[in-house]
Protein backbone atom coordinates (compact mmCIF):
# COMPACT_ATOMS: atom_id res chain seq x y z
CA UNK A 1 0.00 0.00 0.00
CA UNK A 2 1.37 3.43 -0.86
CA UNK A 3 0.25 7.02 -1.16
CA UNK A 4 -2.15 8.96 1.09
CA UNK A 5 -4.26 7.07 3.61
CA UNK A 6 -8.00 6.88 3.39
CA UNK A 7 -8.17 9.95 5.63
CA UNK A 8 -6.20 11.93 3.03
CA UNK A 9 -3.01 12.44 5.04
CA UNK A 10 0.44 10.87 4.84
CA UNK A 11 0.39 9.93 8.53
CA UNK A 12 0.08 6.25 9.15
CA UNK A 13 -2.52 4.92 11.62
CA UNK A 14 0.36 3.52 13.73
CA UNK A 15 2.04 6.94 13.86
CA UNK A 16 -1.20 8.56 14.98
CA UNK A 17 -1.78 5.97 17.70
CA UNK A 18 1.76 6.33 19.04
CA UNK A 19 1.28 10.10 19.18
CA UNK A 20 5.01 10.84 19.14
CA UNK A 21 4.78 13.64 16.57
CA UNK A 22 7.58 15.19 14.56
CA UNK A 23 10.11 15.13 17.40
CA UNK A 24 9.57 11.36 18.00
CA UNK A 25 9.34 11.92 21.74
CA UNK A 26 5.68 12.82 22.21
CA UNK A 27 4.84 14.71 25.38
CA UNK A 28 7.66 13.23 27.48
CA UNK A 29 9.72 16.43 27.79
CA UNK A 30 6.65 18.53 28.58
CA UNK A 31 5.40 16.13 31.26
CA UNK A 32 8.84 15.65 32.84
CA UNK A 33 9.24 19.43 33.08
CA UNK A 34 5.86 19.67 34.88
CA UNK A 35 6.45 16.71 37.19
CA UNK A 36 9.79 18.10 38.37
CA UNK A 37 8.15 21.55 38.70
CA UNK A 38 5.50 20.16 41.07
CA UNK A 39 8.24 18.60 43.22
CA UNK A 40 10.20 21.86 43.22
CA UNK A 41 7.13 23.91 44.16
CA UNK A 42 7.32 22.07 47.51
CA UNK A 43 11.08 21.51 47.90
CA UNK A 44 12.34 24.95 46.84
CA UNK A 45 10.30 27.00 49.37
CA UNK A 46 11.26 24.48 52.10
CA UNK A 47 14.95 24.92 51.30
CA UNK A 48 14.85 28.71 50.91
CA UNK A 49 13.09 29.18 54.26
CA UNK A 50 15.36 26.61 55.96
CA UNK A 51 18.46 28.27 54.49
CA UNK A 52 17.29 31.67 55.72
CA UNK A 53 16.64 30.31 59.20
CA UNK A 54 19.51 27.86 59.72
CA UNK A 55 22.28 28.06 57.09
CA UNK A 56 25.30 30.29 56.65
CA UNK A 57 25.80 30.41 60.44
CA UNK A 58 29.23 28.85 60.64
CA UNK A 59 30.87 25.57 59.66
CA UNK A 60 29.75 23.40 62.58
CA UNK A 61 26.21 24.75 62.51
CA UNK A 62 25.82 24.14 58.75
CA UNK A 63 27.33 20.64 59.01
CA UNK A 64 24.91 19.87 61.81
CA UNK A 65 21.87 20.98 59.81
CA UNK A 66 22.77 18.88 56.76
CA UNK A 67 23.72 15.87 58.91
CA UNK A 68 20.10 15.70 60.13
CA UNK A 69 18.63 12.82 58.06
CA UNK A 70 15.39 14.63 57.23
CA UNK A 71 17.31 17.65 55.95
CA UNK A 72 19.74 15.45 53.99
CA UNK A 73 16.88 13.53 52.34
CA UNK A 74 15.05 16.76 51.47
CA UNK A 75 18.24 18.28 50.10
CA UNK A 76 19.00 15.24 47.90
CA UNK A 77 15.43 15.29 46.56
CA UNK A 78 15.80 19.01 45.87
CA UNK A 79 19.09 18.45 44.02
CA UNK A 80 17.60 15.64 41.89
CA UNK A 81 14.44 17.61 40.98
CA UNK A 82 16.27 20.90 40.43
CA UNK A 83 19.07 19.56 38.25
CA UNK A 84 16.64 17.47 36.16
CA UNK A 85 14.28 20.45 35.77
CA UNK A 86 17.06 22.87 34.80
CA UNK A 87 18.58 20.45 32.32
CA UNK A 88 15.20 20.19 30.60
CA UNK A 89 14.73 23.96 30.76
CA UNK A 90 18.11 24.95 29.35
CA UNK A 91 17.67 22.30 26.63
CA UNK A 92 14.66 24.28 25.33
CA UNK A 93 16.61 27.55 25.50
CA UNK A 94 19.46 26.02 23.48
CA UNK A 95 17.05 24.51 20.93
CA UNK A 96 15.32 27.89 20.56
CA UNK A 97 18.34 30.09 20.00
CA UNK A 98 21.08 27.90 18.49
CA UNK A 99 20.42 26.70 14.96
CA UNK A 100 23.92 25.59 13.91
CA UNK A 101 23.70 21.78 14.24
CA UNK A 102 27.19 21.08 15.63
CA UNK A 103 27.11 23.98 18.11
CA UNK A 104 23.63 22.95 19.22
CA UNK A 105 24.63 19.32 19.72
CA UNK A 106 27.73 20.28 21.71
CA UNK A 107 25.77 22.69 23.92
CA UNK A 108 23.05 20.09 24.55
CA UNK A 109 25.72 17.55 25.46
CA UNK A 110 27.47 20.09 27.70
CA UNK A 111 24.15 20.94 29.37
CA UNK A 112 23.59 17.28 30.23
CA UNK A 113 27.15 16.77 31.47
CA UNK A 114 27.15 19.92 33.64
CA UNK A 115 23.76 19.09 35.17
CA UNK A 116 24.67 15.45 35.91
CA UNK A 117 28.17 16.35 37.10
CA UNK A 118 26.99 19.05 39.49
CA UNK A 119 24.13 16.85 40.77
CA UNK A 120 26.50 13.95 41.53
CA UNK A 121 28.98 16.32 43.21
CA UNK A 122 26.26 17.89 45.36
CA UNK A 123 24.72 14.53 46.37
CA UNK A 124 28.14 13.06 47.17
CA UNK A 125 28.87 16.11 49.34
CA UNK A 126 25.55 15.71 51.21
CA UNK A 127 26.20 11.99 51.81
CA UNK A 128 29.75 12.60 52.99
CA UNK A 129 28.55 15.26 55.42
CA UNK A 130 25.76 12.94 56.61
CA UNK A 131 27.92 9.88 57.19
CA UNK A 132 31.01 11.79 58.31
CA UNK A 133 34.33 11.71 56.52
Amino acid at each position, binding site marked *: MSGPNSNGTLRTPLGRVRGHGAAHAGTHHFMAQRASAVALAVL*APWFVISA*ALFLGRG*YDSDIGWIANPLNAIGLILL*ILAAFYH*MRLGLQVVIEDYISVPLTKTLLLLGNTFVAFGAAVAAIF*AILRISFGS
Partner: protein
Amino acid sequence: MAGPAKPGTSRPLSPHLQVWRWHPTMASSIFHRATGVGLYLTALCLAIWLVALAMGPEAYGLVMSLLNTWPGLIVVYLASVGISYHLANGIRHMVWDIGHGFSPKVADGSAMAVILFALIAPIGVWGLSMFGGQG
Protein backbone atom coordinates in the same frame (compact mmCIF):
# COMPACT_ATOMS: atom_id res chain seq x y z
CA MET B 1 14.32 22.67 5.57
CA ALA B 2 15.41 26.28 5.43
CA GLY B 3 18.73 26.95 7.13
CA PRO B 4 19.82 30.21 8.74
CA ALA B 5 19.11 33.23 6.51
CA LYS B 6 22.02 34.31 4.36
CA PRO B 7 23.10 37.92 4.76
CA GLY B 8 21.47 40.09 2.12
CA THR B 9 18.38 37.92 1.58
CA SER B 10 15.22 39.84 2.33
CA ARG B 11 12.91 37.85 4.52
CA PRO B 12 10.21 39.09 6.84
CA LEU B 13 11.64 39.69 10.31
CA SER B 14 9.95 38.74 13.53
CA PRO B 15 9.00 41.74 15.66
CA HIS B 16 12.08 43.00 17.43
CA LEU B 17 12.08 43.93 21.09
CA GLN B 18 12.98 47.55 20.27
CA VAL B 19 9.73 48.14 18.37
CA TRP B 20 7.47 45.98 20.52
CA ARG B 21 5.39 47.56 23.25
CA TRP B 22 6.10 45.78 26.53
CA HIS B 23 3.05 44.32 28.20
CA PRO B 24 2.72 42.22 31.38
CA THR B 25 2.29 38.78 29.81
CA MET B 26 5.25 39.31 27.49
CA ALA B 27 7.44 40.59 30.32
CA SER B 28 6.43 37.67 32.58
CA SER B 29 7.34 35.16 29.87
CA ILE B 30 10.75 36.74 29.24
CA PHE B 31 11.44 37.00 33.00
CA HIS B 32 10.55 33.31 33.43
CA ARG B 33 13.22 32.26 30.94
CA ALA B 34 15.77 34.77 32.25
CA THR B 35 15.27 33.70 35.88
CA GLY B 36 15.39 30.04 34.76
CA VAL B 37 18.84 30.53 33.24
CA GLY B 38 19.88 32.53 36.31
CA LEU B 39 18.72 29.74 38.62
CA TYR B 40 20.79 27.25 36.60
CA LEU B 41 23.84 29.23 37.69
CA THR B 42 22.44 29.52 41.23
CA ALA B 43 22.10 25.73 41.44
CA LEU B 44 25.73 25.35 40.35
CA CYS B 45 26.68 27.77 43.17
CA LEU B 46 24.68 25.62 45.62
CA ALA B 47 26.60 22.54 44.43
CA ILE B 48 29.90 24.39 44.92
CA TRP B 49 28.81 25.46 48.42
CA LEU B 50 27.90 21.87 49.36
CA VAL B 51 31.18 20.46 48.02
CA ALA B 52 33.13 23.14 49.90
CA LEU B 53 31.26 22.27 53.08
CA ALA B 54 32.10 18.58 52.58
CA MET B 55 35.77 19.41 51.97
CA GLY B 56 36.22 21.06 55.33
CA PRO B 57 36.37 24.34 57.25
CA GLU B 58 39.05 25.87 55.01
CA ALA B 59 37.14 25.50 51.70
CA TYR B 60 33.90 26.45 53.46
CA GLY B 61 35.52 29.59 54.86
CA LEU B 62 36.76 30.61 51.41
CA VAL B 63 33.29 30.23 49.82
CA MET B 64 31.58 32.05 52.70
CA SER B 65 34.10 34.91 52.54
CA LEU B 66 33.26 35.28 48.83
CA LEU B 67 29.53 35.26 49.61
CA ASN B 68 29.98 37.92 52.30
CA THR B 69 31.36 40.54 49.91
CA TRP B 70 29.01 43.11 48.34
CA PRO B 71 29.02 41.36 44.92
CA GLY B 72 28.38 38.06 46.73
CA LEU B 73 25.45 39.48 48.69
CA ILE B 74 24.00 41.00 45.49
CA VAL B 75 24.22 37.57 43.82
CA VAL B 76 22.43 35.98 46.80
CA TYR B 77 19.74 38.68 46.68
CA LEU B 78 19.24 38.27 42.91
CA ALA B 79 19.03 34.49 43.43
CA SER B 80 16.25 34.96 45.99
CA VAL B 81 14.39 37.26 43.57
CA GLY B 82 14.89 34.66 40.81
CA ILE B 83 13.59 31.77 42.94
CA SER B 84 10.56 33.80 44.09
CA TYR B 85 9.72 34.82 40.55
CA HIS B 86 10.27 31.43 38.89
CA LEU B 87 8.27 29.68 41.65
CA ALA B 88 5.29 32.06 41.49
CA ASN B 89 5.24 32.17 37.69
CA GLY B 90 5.69 28.39 37.58
CA ILE B 91 2.52 28.00 39.64
CA ARG B 92 0.84 30.44 37.21
CA HIS B 93 1.91 28.09 34.41
CA MET B 94 0.40 25.13 36.29
CA VAL B 95 -2.93 26.98 36.52
CA TRP B 96 -2.73 27.49 32.76
CA ASP B 97 -1.97 23.78 32.29
CA ILE B 98 -5.20 22.97 34.15
CA GLY B 99 -6.96 25.27 31.69
CA HIS B 100 -7.70 28.42 33.67
CA GLY B 101 -6.53 32.03 33.63
CA PHE B 102 -6.16 32.64 29.89
CA SER B 103 -8.37 35.72 29.49
CA PRO B 104 -6.21 38.80 28.75
CA LYS B 105 -7.43 40.55 31.88
CA VAL B 106 -6.63 37.62 34.22
CA ALA B 107 -3.35 36.81 32.46
CA ASP B 108 -2.19 40.44 32.74
CA GLY B 109 -3.29 40.62 36.37
CA SER B 110 -1.56 37.39 37.36
CA ALA B 111 1.60 38.55 35.57
CA MET B 112 1.63 41.75 37.62
CA ALA B 113 0.91 39.78 40.80
CA VAL B 114 3.83 37.43 40.13
CA ILE B 115 6.22 40.33 39.47
CA LEU B 116 5.06 42.03 42.66
CA PHE B 117 5.51 38.78 44.64
CA ALA B 118 9.07 38.40 43.31
CA LEU B 119 9.92 41.88 44.58
CA ILE B 120 8.34 41.44 48.02
CA ALA B 121 9.04 37.77 48.94
CA PRO B 122 12.86 38.16 49.12
CA ILE B 123 12.40 40.92 51.72
CA GLY B 124 10.46 38.42 53.83
CA VAL B 125 13.16 35.76 53.37
CA TRP B 126 15.88 38.22 54.38
CA GLY B 127 13.82 39.25 57.37
CA LEU B 128 13.64 35.57 58.38
CA SER B 129 17.41 35.17 58.07
CA MET B 130 18.03 38.34 60.11
CA PHE B 131 15.50 37.87 62.92
CA GLY B 132 14.04 34.36 62.75
CA GLY B 133 16.98 32.01 62.99
CA GLN B 134 18.87 30.41 65.78
CA GLY B 135 22.23 32.02 66.36
